[in-house]
């Protein structure tokens, strides 16, 4: 690839063979008549964004294989997401999952002021994992930038820019790059520490007043673009945020929110009860959903959004009903509402919870995500008909169908879509059985 600063006519190309990266490979005559020699390396000042022709619209998702992300809060290729959460809530795990399974061509992973062992883990695991797209070890598409917490803070401040510049370099070649920064809070703290040493006037919580502008400069470097060579490439940024005391009102989380459009809020209570990924369905959001709607309709199913909306509605209903249950217990609720609670439980356990350590559940293709939603909603609608017939919820609950649907993530393999028909069949017989009993 020719550096952005050079343009002109190729006048000489080296013969095929092996060369060192510093060996001149191509000569280019510029308009001025100067001849420039190009080698296989480029240098670029990391704080300056690399140029491109133009920004293109955002319309494709970055597919991650994580249900709560792809289905509820999708991230677009060229978009930016933040994943805030207190310690131990799952920021690093989620980022590792995306680094492993997302359908990007290149992954840039910045360990910014975090643990040494987490870097070592990537170094040990990734060479062993196979990238389904290329059939090659995952490590080959990954660049790691390691600045662990015990390394100098000045380098920590720079590591973010090094990472994004590498990402731009690959984007300019026409690749889709996903960049993970774990954690942007440590970077902000490095800014604060350096600013303190320079004796600058601090703003909020000791952070320098230019924190928001630095954050926006970073996140602005995401995007789906046409590169100088006319190819399409993208950078998707996923930044972890480690708020002090797990409190999202602190400056780094608040300022980050202004520059991202996808917010995966990790919840301490969910993590405590081992609901993983602990991305909370009520406090998270993705503003990309509308932009991606057409893509999902065309590439997954016409009804994808409809079902998604229904799932979200049921979860919201559940949270309202839980307020009542907390006050007076669940027994007094009418049966339709008890059913909502039961289905929401199926959604939480069977759909939202996803086990990163399970062989097949760790990555789930979009078709299966869709079929799972479809099955859950089918179960809901079928049960509702029974309730309308006056059959009590307690009777419905005695049937094993709810547990069976919860376990379908394990019982149905990622390439056994036909098995969903069987479950559907069992939902039908569940209906018939009860219907006949109560006729």
């Amino acid at each position, binding site marked *: 690839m020719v550096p952005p600063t050079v343009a002109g006519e190729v006048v000489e190309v080296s013969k095929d063979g092996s060369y060192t990266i510093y060996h001149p490979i191509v000569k280019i005559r510029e308009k001025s008549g100067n001849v420039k020699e190009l080698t296989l390396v480029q240098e670029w000042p990391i704080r300056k964004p690399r140029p491109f022709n133009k920004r293109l619209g955002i319309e494709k998702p970055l597919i991650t294989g994580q249900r709560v992300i792809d289905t509820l809060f999708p991230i677009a290729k060229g978009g930016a997401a933040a994943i805030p959460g*207190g310690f*131990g809530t799952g920021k690093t795990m989620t980022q590792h999952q995306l680094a492993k399974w997302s359908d990007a061509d290149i992954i840039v992973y910045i360990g910014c002021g975090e643990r*040494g062992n987490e870097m070592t883990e990537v170094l040990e695991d990734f060479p062993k994992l196979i990238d389904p797209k290329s059939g090659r070890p995952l490590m080959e598409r990954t660049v790691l930038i390691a600045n662990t*917490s015990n390394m100098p803070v000045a380098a920590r401040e720079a590591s973010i820019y090094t990472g994004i510049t590498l990402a731009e370099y690959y984007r300019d070649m026409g690749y889709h790059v996903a960049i993970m920064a774990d954690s942007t809070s440590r970077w902000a*703290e490095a800014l604060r520490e350096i600013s303190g040493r320079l004796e600058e006037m601090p703003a909020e919580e000791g952070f320098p007043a230019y924190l928001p502008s630095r954050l926006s400069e970073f996140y602005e470097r995401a995007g789906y673009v046409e590169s100088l060579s006319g190819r399409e490439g993208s950078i998707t940024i996923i930044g972890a945020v*480690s708020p002090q*005391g797990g409190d999202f009102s602190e400056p780094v989380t608040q300022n980050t929110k202004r520059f991202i459009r996808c917010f995966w809020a990790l919840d301490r209570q969910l993590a405590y009860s081992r609901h993983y990924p602990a991305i909370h369905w009520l406090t998270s959001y993705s503003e990309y959903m509308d932009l991606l709607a057409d893509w999902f309709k065309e590439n997954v199913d016409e009804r994808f959004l409809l079902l998604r909306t229904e799932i979200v509605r049921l979860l919201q209903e559940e949270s309202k009903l839980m307020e009542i249950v907390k*006050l007076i217990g669940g027994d007094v609720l009418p049966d339709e509402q008890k059913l909502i609670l039961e289905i929401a439980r199926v959604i939480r356990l069977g759909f939202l919870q996803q086990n990163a350590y399970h062989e097949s559940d760790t990555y789930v293709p979009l078709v299966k995500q869709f079929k799972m939603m479809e099955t859950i909603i089918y179960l809901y609608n079928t049960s509702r008909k029974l309730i309308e017939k006056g059959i009590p919820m307690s009777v419905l609950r005695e049937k094993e169908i709810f*547990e069976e649907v919860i376990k379908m993530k394990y019982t149905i393999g990622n390439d056994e879509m036909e098995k969903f028909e069987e479950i559907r069949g069992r939902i039908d017989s569940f209906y018939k059985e009860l219907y006949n009993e109560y006729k």
Partner: protein
Amino acid sequence: MKLEYIGLKEISGPLIVVEGIQGASYEEMVEITVGPSEKRLGRIVEIHGDIAVVQVFEGTSNISLTNTKIQLMGHPLEIPLSYEILGRVFDGVGRPIDGLGEIYPEVRRDVNGKPINPVSREYPRNYIQTGISSIDGLTTLIRGQKLPIFSANGLPHDTLAVQIVRQAKLAGEEDAEFAVVFVAMGVKHDVADYFKKSFEDSGVMQKVVMFLNLANDPVVERIIAPRCALTVAEYLAFEHNMHVLVILTDITSYCEALREISSSKGEIPSRKGFPGYLYSDLASLYERAGMIKGKKGSITQIPILTMPNDDITHPIPDLTGYITEGQIVLDRSLHQKGIYPPVNVLPSLSRLMKDGIGEGFTREDHPAVANQLFASYAHVQEVRALASVIGEDELSELDKKYIEFGKAFEEEFVSQSREEERSMENTLDLGWRLLGILPKEELDRVDVKILDKYYRPYSNKVRGEF
């Protein structure tokens, strides 16, 4: 020839400011002569042009602007090391205080250590059996891990730490050499004595190195003490192939010392007056745990901290949790119920256990049973909240089972005696036995195969077998 600088520009708390210094470097040691002959040690913590700020280890009492002379020593604080260091007791800056004389050094090392390149780290995978169910079963300690105990005033963290040291076994490697490095920071005499006596009673004192900076010892030395201790640990682990367990207590006093010094330096404070670099500073201690490729030894850290006001969001536990690989959280209400060790398993976590348990390490069902215990016990909390509103009698039959399970879990699984050592097998079996209180359909975190193999409905008859 060494230059001597006479007189000071300023004295502030434990710091002195010297003017006109040439060629000084950050972290360099200085020797301070007070009056005619008294010698003290100091460390350069800041340099502005020809002005250096020096921390005086023994404190600044009796120092005046005119009665001192200063000499640069040309190196950072170093500690003498040799294998003979085992069984010895030192003060916070590594001077022997057991009356057994100086150490004849094999090598001297800078106490600040060097960051380990992640490429040369080895990912820790082997577990340490502590014989304590709540730890082995649910927050498994891995060799090379940093796993702090989040405690609070009046809770039995010291007893728990001693029990861990006494019972710790390296699974499958009984003959491996182990050592304990213990560092006390700002704790009372009786706490240090308790540890010392426990080490002696269990006959491990010859494998222990102690660094004591007690509550009435100089604050500046409190900052150095853990660094000396970790330097010793690195030496034993990576040059003598030992498995070293480092106990650091109390991290809260350490952080308070850091705050005190920071404020006398006039630095801009961050949350609760702690310096903005508290995270980096703690990381420079905690990240010294681990294993290195090609070396046999390991450093496992158990830092102990007391959460001010029992508040887990306080900067000290908060920043610690962001650096360590999990935490064991002790809980006052469990303690008040008479449960020892009062480990609240829900906020507790061992991040490294995922790679060190299960088939080939502990037992195939370990991940499943651990997950299910967490999930079911989390549900117990919801049921209890409900019961406190509508009364236990009004609960559904299923919810009553949860109440029963919760009680049994706390009293039989979490609770054990101070001498009791349970094998991994016993711990896992006990977990299944208690899960048997709940109907099988409720166990939704377990793969069907495992569930069929291990689930048995609870029966009272086998009670007392453990």
